[in-house]
């Protein structure tokens, strides 16, 4: 077994195991930290797919951004802090559904004639330049629309969080 295969299996095991821990741990803080390892693992798997840019953004956005936000959200809201998200009573139906979906997906995955890119095993080349070119040429429209989408999300966040003066306050605020 080559070194890269050993590293791959370590990464894959860590990803799957920590993914399991996220849903099975009783303390939500521990779940959050397990999620951190999952994100790292997925980033590592992207490297193995020669998707260097994707791997870097995965680490930057998920580990650097999303994870921090999750931790902040948990720590700032004391009510959620001690809540267990693990429901023992729902294990059996959950396992049944998951098992069913998993069997179908695995069968399809193994049987399908996936399109393998030629030269996938060759030396890894940086993808950033190609991605940049594509974003500003072929995919300019979706790229621009995504910026509008972010604007909509921003406006929405401001609208929902902003405190109104002279408003009656009933119920919980979003």
């Amino acid at each position, binding site marked *: 077994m080559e070194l890269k295969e050993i590293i791959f299996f370590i990464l894959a095991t860590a990803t799957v195991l920590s993914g399991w821990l996220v849903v099975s741990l009783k303390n939500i803080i521990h779940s959050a930290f397990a999620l951190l390892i999952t994100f790292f693992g997925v980033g590592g798997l992207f490297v193995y797919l020669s998707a260097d840019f994707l791997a870097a953004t995965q680490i930057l956005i998920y580990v650097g951004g999303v994870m921090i936000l999750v931790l902040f959200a948990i720590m700032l809201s004391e009510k959620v802090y001690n809540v267990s998200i693990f429901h023992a009573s729902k294990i059996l139906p959950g396992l049944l559904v998951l098992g069913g979906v998993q069997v*179908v*997906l695995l*069968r*399809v*995955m193994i*049987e*399908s*004639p*996936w*399109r393998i890119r030629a030269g996938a095993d060759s030396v890894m080349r940086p993808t950033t*330049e*190609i991605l940049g*070119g594509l974003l*500003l*040429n*072929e*995919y*300019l*429209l*979706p790229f621009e*629309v*995504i910026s*509008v*989408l972010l*604007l*909509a*999300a921003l*406006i*929405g966040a*401001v*609208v*929902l969080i902003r405190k109104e003066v002279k*408003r*009656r*306050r*009933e*119920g*919980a*605020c*979003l």
Partner: protein
Amino acid sequence: MTLSMPPIPNLHAIAPEIIVLLTSLLVLLIDLIQLRGKKGGLAFLGAAGLALAGIFSYKLLQHPLATDIPGFAVDAYAQFFKIIFCLAGLMVIGISVRYLTLEGFSLGEYYSIILLAILGQMIMASGTHLLVIYVGLELMAISLYILAGFFKHHPKSNEAAVKYFLLGSFSSGIFLYGIMMAYGLTGSLDLSVIAGKVAGAELTGLLLLAVIMMGAGFAFKIAAVPFHFWTPDVYEGSPTSVTAFMSVGPKAAAFAALIRVFSSAFGTLRVEWTTLFICLSIATMVTGNLVALRQTNIKRMLAYSSIAHAGYLMVGFVAGGELGISSMLLYLRIYAFMNIGAFGVVILLNRVGGIGDRIDDFAGLSKVSRASAFVMLVFMLSLAGIPPTAGFAGKFYIFMAAVKNGYVWLAVIGVLNSAVSAYYYLRVIMRMYMVEPGDEPVLNVSTALSAILLIAVVGIIAIGIFPGFCLDLARTSVTSIL
């Protein structure tokens, strides 16, 4: 790799989108410098922008332009839908103004976000690339999540927003998973390339799974059974004007993308997905109508009725061909009039705090205000599909298409369902005309709302008596994609 300046695309071809986006930004900016509380001007600006975009779409419908934007088609088909979106948006803005002031949430951002949602719908209708369609869908969805929770101090509105957000992102995930599988199989996201690859390949489990997952993503947006569980709660909890918007625009947009994706990219798999949609269609019609019978809240009733209408529309989709698809387009146009109109009357009766949402609140409306009772009568008859309203013409063409294309039994199921639905629509009419009013209903009449209701009634009766003009428009639109 050499980088060259991309050619500047023909901006005239995307004029409707640009107008809607600019209006949205303008509304946002003017809102900042304007006096607080007075939002009527902003609503008017938004409506004017939509009207202008609609006119441009109509011009483009008659003279389609070739465009060099990859993944974006400016064909008559897309323009037909854009006119529906602009019309629906305009009507929703009209019924919102006074309602929002009464409820104390008169914010300029509301109109801005509605316009952004319409932009997303327009992009969905024009997209010929799965990435473009997905980004448009998300733009629309995110705007709707915000709008659903717009009454942020009402627990029900909060619940609606959270529910819609969670289930909506889950369905987007499934949709993306389907896109990923199509990409893994064909190596492209462009619909015509996928169509070419799919036509040559044999039917594999992966392809079937891709079709099912993308179908599930769309089925969520059109609120088809069994992906409808969010609909009643979200429709009930959201501000009524937003519910009116949600029940028309997103449904039409999802159908626009659904028809384009399935008939172009997966056109060769027609037999397989027709079976899928026959099952969905029957389940949707039956569940929607049967559950609607038992509702006491008018918004919930209209939610189930909108589920049932998605079922009728799918009958047209199953029938397919020029006849089936053009009857769907016609029906969506009519549906915009009658559904937004019905919600407009609900807003008319609305009093702060959810009173006016019960079907019982309609009791004796004809004695309080003859005009508003008559208007509601027209909408209910049209939703039930009784001549001479447009609802009859719409259903007639859909079921005729099903019969002509060999789905007689499906048309029979549709007609039977339509008969069942008459019960709960007529119940509202009965309350209005035959029951004595309880506590005196207060009507929130405003000029904008009356104007919109008038437009809707005139539209319904005009299309009901002369469906030819709209149907011809729908036919020419459909020929551009088939």
